[in-house]
C-alpha cells in the first residue's frame, strides 16, 4: 500500500493542476463584470466563512502545540478527533458544491442562452472536484488530517474559487435564481 502512495500524491497533484487550468479557462470567460460589487462581496463572504472553519480544522497551529506539549496518548486522541472533524467538513463541502451544481443545472435547463463549451468546462470541473474530494476523504480517513493538510488546503482554495465561479455564472444566466441559490447555500453553511 505504501508503495502506491507517491503515485497517488502525484496523481492528485496532476489533477489539481488540471483543475487549476480548467478554473482559469472558466474565469477568463466568466462574467465577473456583470456582477454588482454587492453580489460579489456576498459570494466572497460566504466562501470566506466556510474556508475559515476548514482552516481551523486543518491548520498546523494546534498540531504543533499538541506534538510539542503532550504525551503520545493525547496526540493520538487529537488525531482521532481531528480526523472525524475533517471528514465531516469534507463531506459537507462536497454536499454544498453539489447543491450549487444542481441549482445551476436547474437554471440552465430553463435558459435560452446555453453555452455548450462553458457548460462542458463546468461539468468537467465539477466531476474533477468530486473525484478530488472523494480521494481526500479516503486519504484523510487513512492518514488523518495532519499529514494531508497541504493537499487539502490547496484543493479547497480551488473549490472555493469554483463555487464563486458557479455563483457568477448563475448570476449571469439568471440573477433571481442566483439570489435564491445563494441564500440556500448560506443557510447550508450556517445551519447544516
Amino acid at each position, binding site marked *: 500500500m505504501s508503495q502506491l502512495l507517491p503515485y497517488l500524491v502525484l496523481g492528485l497533484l496532476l489533477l489539481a493542476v488540471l483543475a487549476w487550468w480548467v478554473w482559469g479557462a472558466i474565469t477568463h470567460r466568466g462574467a465577473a463584470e456583470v456582477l454588482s460589487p454587492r453580489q460579489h462581496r456576498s459570494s466572497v463572504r460566504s466562501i470566506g466563512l466556510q474556508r*475559515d*472553519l476548514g482552516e*481551523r*480544522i486543518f491548520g498546523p*497551529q*494546534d498540531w504543533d*502545540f*499538541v506534538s510539542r*506539549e*503532550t*504525551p503520545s496518548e*493525547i496526540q493520538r*486522541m*487529537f488525531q482521532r*478527533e*481531528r480526523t*472525524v*472533524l475533517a471528514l*465531516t*467538513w469534507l463531506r*459537507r463541502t462536497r454536499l454544498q458544491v453539489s447543491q450549487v451544481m444542481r441549482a445551476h443545472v436547474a437554471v440552465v435547463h430553463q435558459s435560452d442562452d446555453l453555452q455548450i463549451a462553458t457548460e462542458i468546462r463546468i461539468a468537467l470541473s465539477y466531476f474533477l472536484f468530486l473525484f478530488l474530494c472523494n480521494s481526500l476523504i479516503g486519504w484523510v480517513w487513512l492518514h488523518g488530517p495532519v499529514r494531508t493538510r497541504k493537499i487539502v488546503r490547496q484543493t479547497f482554495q480551488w473549490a472555493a474559487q469554483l463555487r464563486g465561479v458557479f455563483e457568477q455564472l448563475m448570476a449571469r444566466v439568471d440573477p433571481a435564481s442566483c439570489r435564491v441559490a445563494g441564500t440556500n447555500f448560506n443557510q447550508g*453553511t*450556517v*445551519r*447544516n
Partner: protein
Amino acid sequence: MSLERRNIDIEPAVTDLRSRTLSRLPGDFSRLVYLASSRDCNTGKYYHDGLAFHFSEMVVSRAFAECHREVFGRLVYASLEELIEELRNYISSTDERPEDFLKSWKHLGSYRVTIPSECDELEAEVFLSNVKIALAMLETRHEGSGRTFRNRD
C-alpha cells in the same frame, strides 16, 4: 429572519450586557458558562432580572443570544493553546478543586450545555472536540505536576 426580528434594536442591551456584566468575568470561558446558565433549557430563552428592568424580556433574550454566539465564536476559532488557558482561568475562578472539576466535566460532559442554540453544527463539533482534548491535556498536566492551578498564576 422575520421582519419583526430585524426591526428590533438590541444594540443598547448588548452594549449594556458587555460593559456591565461580561467585562467583569475572567475570560471567555467564564462568559460562555455565564451566558449559557442564563438560558432556560426548556424554552431556549435567556433571562436576566437586572437587564429586564431597562429592556423588554424579548430584547434581553436576544441580546444574550447575540453575546452567547459572539463569545462562542471566539472560543471556536481560538487555538487549542488559548482554549486551554481560558479553561484553566475558568477553573481557577471557581471554588472547586481542579481534579474534581476536571473529573466532573470529563465524565458528565457539562460543557455540552454551553453551546448556543443557533450555531453551526460543525462549529459546535469543533468546540466539543477541542474542549475534550483541552480537558485531557489539563488532566495530564495536573497529574504530572501535582500542583494546584492557583499555584501557576
